[in-house]
């Protein structure tokens, strides 16, 4: 449930190696805001006769109250339980009958929803999406809350409690953040809080955070923008504006001053080491540098940690390094799964040695260029699909949420292209102090 490590997307010229430059890609869009505050972004692409309707509500688990963790995600499930003019079950039934699919996800800072459908189903998709934005609670009852509460508890069992290493992320967050910090609790929530959530909580959350002024809507794909605009204006005309704008988030800032260590046991056979640092928020200085650092450490066979631990010494089964970019601050994490008889202390010492080297000496030109070239190519790849999670529709909303500009693709890529090898070293030295971080080891249960 970490947000995407690198919310790249996009574009442009193919980079050197050989000095050739590829064609420039255009991602044209238009945007406008309805009187009720809903921001709308339209993007045309006729590759296949499909469209996506993608809605972001700018609220996630970070806004939850004490004793109600997991609520934003439970609420996401409730959005599929029917609304005033859409009886329970019809949301999915009507869409599938039209050849559509849908999904949603909740993170710390946002909740996103998409409907992918053939392009003849635009009105149906907007009818469903607008009805739940306007009239969700008219159809809500304590019984519907209970039904999804059980589903969400099973999601927690499946993805956390019954999954190998599944509880690690929950432990780490509690070590990283002080009490009251919005990233301290898991998006999936604590079991007892899921039990405690009430119907009244649903109504309150809906009125506060699911107002149109706290949302943005993308329609992308096989559309006529003028028709799509008219359809949006029609279907969202009766969505009432919120009573009061969502206030800025207020929270105790996190700051690590030492190394915090913990060992937990799980029903696994391979031990695993997690090293985690608090790092700059998405798009802040240092964020792009740490994405590049991740490729230098753990992207491909020649990356430094992979090469030493997995390829040469063969004391690790896998290694990952990721800058988990978020709105308030990010988390940088290095994860190493050990081979069955390998020594975690030795692995940690080697990780530190490699991080220290990159804190002192700039990476070589070729390895740096290799990382930048991979990032540039990943921008192409993210433009292929319009719908679904991480499709172009979702990316337009992500950039609007994070940068205030759906067309931030170019600026985002420019962040990476502007970097030099020395910038990576400076960021590694500044943001990954070896004496201020969280270390969690998962050991096999006896």
């Amino acid at each position, binding site marked *: 449930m970490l947000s995407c490590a690198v919310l790249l997307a996009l574009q442009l010229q193919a980079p050197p190696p*050989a000095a050739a430059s590829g064609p420039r890609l255009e991602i044209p869009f238009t945007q406008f805001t309805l009187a009720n505050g809903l921001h709308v972004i339209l993007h045309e692409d006729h590759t296949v006769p499909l469209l996506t309707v993608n809605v972001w509500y700018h609220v996630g688990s970070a806004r939850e109250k004490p004793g109600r963790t997991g609520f934003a995600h439970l609420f996401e499930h409730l959005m599929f339980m029917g609304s005033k003019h859409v009886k329970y*079950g019809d949301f999915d039934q009507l869409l599938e009958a039209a050849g559509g699919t849908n999904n949603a996800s909740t993170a710390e800072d946002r909740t996103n929803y998409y409907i992918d459908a053939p392009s003849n189903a635009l009105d*149906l998709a907007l009818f469903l999406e607008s009805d739940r934005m306007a009239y969700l609670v008219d159809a809500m009852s304590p019984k519907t809350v209970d039904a999804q509460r059980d589903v969400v508890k099973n999601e927690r069992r499946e993805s956390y409690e*019954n999954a190998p290493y599944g509880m690690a992320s929950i432990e780490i967050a509690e070590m990283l953040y002080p009490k009251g910090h919005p990233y301290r609790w898991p998006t999936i929530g604590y079991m007892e809080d899921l039990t405690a959530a009430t119907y009244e909580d649903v109504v309150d959350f809906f009125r506060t955070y699911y107002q149109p002024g706290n949302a943005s809507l993308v329609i992308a794909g096989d559309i006529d923008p003028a028709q799509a605009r008219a359809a949006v204006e029609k279907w969202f005309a009766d969505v009432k504006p919120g009573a009061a704008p969502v206030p800025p988030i207020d929270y105790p800032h996190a700051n690590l001053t030492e190394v915090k260590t913990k060992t937990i046991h799980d029903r696994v*056979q391979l031990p695993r080491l997690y090293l985690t640092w608090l790092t700059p928020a998405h798009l802040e200085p240092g964020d792009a540098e740490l994405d590049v650092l991740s490729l230098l450490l753990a992207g*491909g066979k020649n990356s430094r940690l992979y090469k030493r631990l997995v390829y040469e010494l063969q004391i690790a089964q896998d290694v990952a390094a990721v800058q988990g970019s978020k709105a308030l601050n990010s988390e940088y994490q290095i994860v190493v799964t050990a081979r*069955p008889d390998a020594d975690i202390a030795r692995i940690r010492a080697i990780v530190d040695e490699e991080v220290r080297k990159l804190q002192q000496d700039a990476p070589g030109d070729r390895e740096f260029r290799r990382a930048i070239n991979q990032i540039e190519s990943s921008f192409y790849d993210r433009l292929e699909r319009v719908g679904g999670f991480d499709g172009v529709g979702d990316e337009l909303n992500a950039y609007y949420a994070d940068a205030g500009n759906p067309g931030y693709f170019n600026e985002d890529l420019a962040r990476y292209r502007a970097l030099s090898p020395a910038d990576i070293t400076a960021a590694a030295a500044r943001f990954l102090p070896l004496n201020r971080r969280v270390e969690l080891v998962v050991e096999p249960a006896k």
Partner: protein
Amino acid sequence: MTARGSFLLSGLCALSAIVGAQQLPDRSKAPAVGPPPALKLPAVERRTLSNGLQVLVIGVHKVPAVHLELAVRTGVGADPPSKAGLSSLTADMLDEGAGSRSALEVSDAVEFLGADLSTSGGVDAAFVQLHVPVARLADALPIMADVIARPTFPDAELKRLRDERLAALLEMQDDPEQLVRVAFPRLVFGSQHRYGSPEIGTAASLKTIETADLKAFHAAQYLPSNAVLVAAGDVTADTIVPLLEQAFGSWKPPATPKPSSVPPARQLTARHVYLIDKPGAAQSQVRIGGIGVPRSTPDYFALRVLNTVLGEAFTSRLNNNLREVHGYAYGASSRFDMRLSAGPFFAGAGIQTDKTPEALREFFNELTRIHEPVPLAELEKAKNYLALLVPRTFETTRGTADALATAWIYGLPGDYYTTYADRVRAVTAADVKRAADKYIQPDRFAVVIVGDRKTIEPGVRALNLGPLTVIEPAEVFK
């Protein structure tokens, strides 16, 4: 700049409000959906290189990138009896040294181009895929050709990959979801049938595989006459085929393909319950089913519609029953895994531990109810859902290449995707019932459960589904 910018003016907003006020939406019923748009697929250009390698080129011009997918007709059926995993390990080893490059050099060269090269061995085919910006295609193709035609299979790399697989097999025992995925086919197909063991092999079989085995397997199976190369992306046949000829033309191994196959498995004859203990597990991972059908089944479309109703779509009966109505699971589904030979059919879910018997009863209720004629509205919904999935496949270069490679592997006709929607729509309720009667026989299914034995065994036994055998996790990995 790509952004056209916003014309976000208060005047326009006011105008929106007025327009909106004049046209309040009619919410009394869901808006009608007109006829579905037609999917127009770009033409597939078919060529053959001088060495006999078939090439399929299809234009996808949105992004200046191309996805190349080589599919070789080989798979687990070509594994020698004591060397399960050889086919898959050979595929994995292709890029661990090729031509004049070491494993590290192959990886460095590919990544420096901003390209992605992957090799994988599946049940019915091995794949080498290259995703690359068009501007880098000419630089990347020789590396791909080396990986396909001139892998070097170094000893040290084999040892490393083998050890990784042995550790991966241990990891699979830790994860109830993975464990049931291995246990179910073992208990349905048995240890003697190739589908009864993991594609990646077993600890015992992997230890017998030497580089000589890889070289012999490659020489016998990786042949231009036994493969197809699909190119999907911002290219045309005229621009890419000369590059392919240059890169692949010299790939002319002397061998002729030796067809491999997996013999049909014997269908189960009685229901049997298998329980694998995971003390303290929060959920029971369950799979229920038997031997399904081969991909060549004449009942393909009837079975796809049947399974959409039963357990494929979100609104399918299994998901609706176990997730929405009862809240026993986060999701439930079913699947016919169709291969060159008959693969498994199964229904499954992760069920909260204390509801395991209740959930099993619901599974069998649905596996029984599917034999009644499917109501018309439910049938139409499933058919539309299925028919309109096709355009999604062709949205990306990779999806497009996969679709063409799949059609080649299974010998599907040239008009397969363009006639797909019509063939789905032609399925009747009678067809679905006939397929259900023939292929869904719950009284012969195996029931495989990975869960907390102490809590669930009494309730499961009380259901009287059939004889119950407790299995050790390690047993299904032998």
